[in-house]
């Protein structure tokens, strides 16, 4: 097995204690940092698909994301200043009145693993705060809004519409237990992901990446 393939396998199986050493060995063997990163991103794509299909569960996704972050730590000093690996900045938050953070945290991990620079606004985020965050951060390409309660779906709508009013070209992706594709269409969101596993591929799809 090549060193890169080994890294890929370790990320997919969530072996966070072994990934850093494997990444270093891969670099030492002459593999390019970008290629190693791409392999890890591909691994997380596989993990996301397996989660969406019910083949794996949240713990497996969490340990894979943790393993990836351990690998990225090794690559970071080498790739510092090289913006080519970033897909842009994504602002994410759970909408106003909603304190659920687990699903949101999973999506943050999956988008980060796919190559987005994530700005996590946390929970109970007022609509205006998403707009402020667009202004305060560089290269924002995507807003991701999560809502877990039927009662906070109006806040999801408000968040999307506030962002769209202030930044008409900004893409917005939504998700959460009560959210459906129909509801996402109704509130003019650009994309909807039914679960964390599919969030990264949907985000890339609506950005044409």
């Amino acid at each position: 097995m090549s060193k890169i393939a080994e890294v890929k396998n370790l990320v997919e199986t969530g072996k966070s204690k072994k990934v850093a050493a494997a990444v270093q060995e891969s670099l030492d063997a002459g593999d390019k940092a970008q290629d190693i990163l791409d392999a890890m991103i591909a691994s997380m794509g596989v993990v996301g698909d397996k989660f969406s299909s019910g083949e794996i569960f949240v713990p497996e996704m969490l340990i894979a994301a943790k393993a990836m972050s351990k690998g990225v730590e090794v690559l970071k000093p080498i790739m510092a200043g090289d913006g080519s690996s970033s897909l842009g900045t994504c602002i994410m938050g759970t909408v106003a009145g909603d304190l659920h953070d687990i699903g949101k945290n999973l999506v943050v991990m999956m988008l980060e693993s796919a190559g987005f620079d994530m700005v996590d606004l946390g929970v109970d985020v007022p609509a205006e705060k998403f707009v402020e965050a667009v202004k305060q951060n560089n290269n924002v390409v995507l807003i991701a809004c999560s809502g877990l309660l039927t009662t906070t779906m109006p806040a999801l709508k408000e968040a999307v519409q506030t962002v769209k009013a202030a930044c008409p070209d900004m893409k917005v992706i939504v998700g959460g237990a009560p959210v459906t594709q129909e509801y996402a269409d109704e509130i003019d969101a650009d994309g909807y992901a039914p679960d964390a596993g599919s969030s990264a591929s949907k985000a890339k799809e609506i950005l044409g990446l």
Partner: protein
Amino acid sequence: MLTIKENLKEVMTGGNPERFVKQYEFMEMIMSVPMTRMKPPIGGEIVNEWGVTIRWPEGQIGSFPVHDDELIVIKDICEWKDYVNAPNLKHSDDAWKTAIAQAAAVNRKEKYVTAFMAPGLFELTHFLMRMENALMNFYEEPEAMHELIDFFTQYELDYAREVIDHIHPDALFHHDDWGSQISTFLSPAMFEEFFVPAYKKIYGFWKENGVEIIVHHSDSYAATLVPYMIEMGIDIWQGVMTTNNISELIEKYGNDITFMGGVDSGIVDKPDWTQEQINTEFRRACTNYGKLYFIPGLSQGLAISSFPGVYEAADEAIDNMSKEMF
């Protein structure tokens, strides 16, 4: 006319019920035991019996454990013994008076004197250390997680002993949410390893000591865990959501377990609820899932609703369906 209990038994055994069981009508929950779980008032914050800070912000329909780095209880799973103290279970006779009187007032021919237990074993793991940490620790520190769950199990057995000695319950209503709306949190294999042996001990102990039925609450998807529920000794799974294929579950497992719920609280329990929508939902549930091995009800984990009037409206909808279908 069958009593409430007799009617329930007919439903559970595939007999001849006279009507639908109406949500929680068969359980008289004794919530006044001295060690009942602590919850904050709306707008308030408390440190509960396990040392977990719990907050109920204004405008929310439930309370949330606060899991910032400072307040999290278990900061290192390998050192969990340094952080975890089981709540006190020894209380004076005086402290038990209200619960004993409440239990004594129940007509046991009509209803089950029901002990209540929450949070459950899985919930305790993430209450004490945050969901993400708990879920990763099942992989990364399995031995420590087994030890911790053994500790919780012993606590639950001690709790059961106290409750049994004082109020002699006929039923147990036990919370432990095992999934989200669309999936279980753990794979079935991991669930089997960590939780099935523990719950077999706990539910077995209650049953060895006079409890006739075990009602387990998990308002989630958990269809893949039903065989384990049966193995553990659960008689009724309360909170079964429509994301489970309830008709299929009833057909496959109805002889061994009864399903309670079938109407998702999130759909009907809202500020602008209507009787019409509730009627429609219960018509769907009663028609699709039938008269046997099924108890229509909201998925909510107590005989309450988040918004006033919804629980009673659900009862009314069930009465209407009983008149129509029986």
